[in-house]
């Protein structure tokens, strides 16, 4: 099935909430997956692969993770969101090393985290390299699913790659996403149908 960007963002947001994340992180994930997918990174697939193992509670990280470059193997959601919260305080003069699980999603989160500022980050892991900045992820190859990466600051890219506007998702991914999203909906009951919207069932004039 082909989805619009609005649908993808909304459904990932609801699926994240359905997983148990608070609405704030759910919103981050909707925005992040869309940004990654717009630049050709399979963040939806990554999110679904990680979903059952994601910890939706408070962060397991410490602030020192970033300031001391501790290379803990951490899921993309906790690592990515905590990193972007700390971005204003990080100058990356010394490259920071992190061990990322769920690279495509992680890059989407970093991209979202840079929204509204003119900074750019250079991300490197093995042979994979990319530049991430607000609304732009520039990469020449597909990222690994997991790996140790180095982050450093770099000049913003002037690249203006055309973005993907429609998103072809595998049916298994769609099904899983829809299933998670459906958890935010209240069950249909007759009482809800009659009273919840304040109208009768026949509202003709």
């Amino acid at each position, binding site marked *: 099935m082909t989805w*619009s960007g609005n649908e993808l963002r909304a459904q990932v947001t609801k699926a994240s909430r359905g997983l148990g994340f608070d609405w*704030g992180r759910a919103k981050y994930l909707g925005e992040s997956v869309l940004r990654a997918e717009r630049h050709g990174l399979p963040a939806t697939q990554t999110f679904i692969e990680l979903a059952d193992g994601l910890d939706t509670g408070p*962060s397991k990280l410490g602030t020192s993770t970033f300031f001391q470059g501790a290379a803990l193997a951490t899921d993309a959601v906790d690592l990515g969101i905590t990193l972007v*919260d700390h971005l204003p305080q990080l100058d990356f003069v010394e490259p920071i090393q992190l061990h990322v699980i769920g690279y495509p999603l992680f890059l989407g989160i970093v991209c979202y985290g840079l*929204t509204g500022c003119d900074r750019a980050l250079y991300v490197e892991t093995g042979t994979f390299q990319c530049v991430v900045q607000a609304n732009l992820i520039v990469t020449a190859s597909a990222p690994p699913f997991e790996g140790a990466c180095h982050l450093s600051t770099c000049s913003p890219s002037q690249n203006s790659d055309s973005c993907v506007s429609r998103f072809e998702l595998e049916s298994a991914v769609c099904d899983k996403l829809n299933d998670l999203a459906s958890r935010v909906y*209240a069950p249909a009951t007759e009482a*809800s149908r009659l009273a919840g*919207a304040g109208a009768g069932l026949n509202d003709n*004039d």
Partner: protein
Amino acid sequence: MIALRKPDDVMRLDRLGSLHGSRLSFLRILLRRIQVERWSFERTAFEIGADCTGHAVYTAHTPDRAYSLVVFAHQLDPEHRTDRVIANAWDSTFTLFDGIPTDADIDRLRCQVPLQEAGRLSPSELTMSRANKSVRLWDALVSTLASGEQPATELIDETGYLMRTTAVYGSGKFGACDREMILDRPELQPAFQAEMLTVLMIRQFARNWLEYEAYLRAPGQAVRLDDTLATRLGIGNSTGLGMAPFLINHPVLIDHWMRARETAIARVAAIREVMDTDRALVMRLINRQRNEFKLWRSSDETQSEAIIDLTQDLGVLADWFGSSPSNQALWAEAMQFAATSLCFEAQEVLASVMLEPYAELVDSLASEMAVDESELRPVNGALTVAESIAQIDRQYHWLDDIHWKRADATALLWYVSEEKLEPRLGVRNEDAFEVHEQPLAPARDITAYRQALNLWSPETTLAEFLMREPEHRLAAMRVQWIAANQYGEIRGNTIDASLRPIDLLRCKLSFFGATRFDPRSDRWLRITLYRHAPYLDQVVEMDPFWVYGPVQ
């Protein structure tokens, strides 16, 4: 320039529930563009059969592009006719196609558009909509026209529309084109322009369909609807709770809408010496508005009383103008008088009407009413707890007036039903939907965020705080957005037992340019769009003040 009215005064729920359209209403922005750019319209298909079903296509030609309304006309069993989102069938269904559809496009759309939410659109479609006939008016008008007569004006005014839309979906819904993909088109940059164009062309179709049905009933005898009478017909719309979350979920956009209107009001109020012609125009328009309000009916007791108060207060306002010979700072003086002597509805009518003579001060603000929400920043984690508390205390001092220990203060909860994903309101502790609650109670959530911050040392950063208390992230982001967008926050508790959700709906609908607000309960209402507006072939020559009704 005179200072803008304070957000604390403007963003009260009861004032939002009293707003009226203005030069900055989205449908008026669209019609002005059509007039200035001299768009042309053509009906390129009207394949409606003897059973009154089939399809039609109306195309708008702009200087650079074409947009086509593709219509599917159906026969609807009366027992299936309902305005609720949970409906599965309608009298007619529509999509706004980007360009001119081929036969293959029509065939594809015929399989999808009539299904509405169950169908799938493509990037070539900008909106999807449906409408039902007014049971009160449709059959009566068909019979009258078929007999060669024209209907009474009173009959037309009683309803005010031939058909009612029950949803107009845009921006990527059900596979349609994302708004981000068309933001480079000047004609679609202001908010909801594709939706307004859709409804404008639906109105034309409704008239054509009515006249066609009358013709089919009596081919040699039927007459077309008189132009003057037809102009009194707008398009109705039934709006329920689905619109309310929009105002809460898009605070920066709402700030831009409200700020544009408030800026326009302040610019006009700052005029030191008002010209006689401008004063006279506003007087005439208020009179036209009063006449129009006399035809405004509502079955809602609160709204009915508000209409009575409004018409009385507009009389008081007219008397005030009559006893105020000076044109010096006239609008500022009038606003001051209104603020102290008139009801909210009358204050907002004055605020809107006094903008009318000043296109050069007002109309350019339309370009400031759109926001690229993909540019909104996430939480700035470098702020400290102390700075965040100070920010809340500056922006949200009104929260102190809410007593959260009262059961009524948290009596309601917003949820989305799995039944066609209809947004609904439930009663906390009764409906057992807490686990499904939507984040639509910023007053409560920011209060909780403030209380949580209090327990942390002042120099702690938000980044550290959110690592341990992630449930406050949405509130933290909202507080930071509101810092620069003060008109984006409703000063009220959206889960209080006393909430009238229709106040939220009224605010948004007034920006669309809706009139004749008719609450049917505290949770949904009917309105009319484009009443007194020109039809497609008349826009270029339109009276700029058409919305006020005919000159008496």
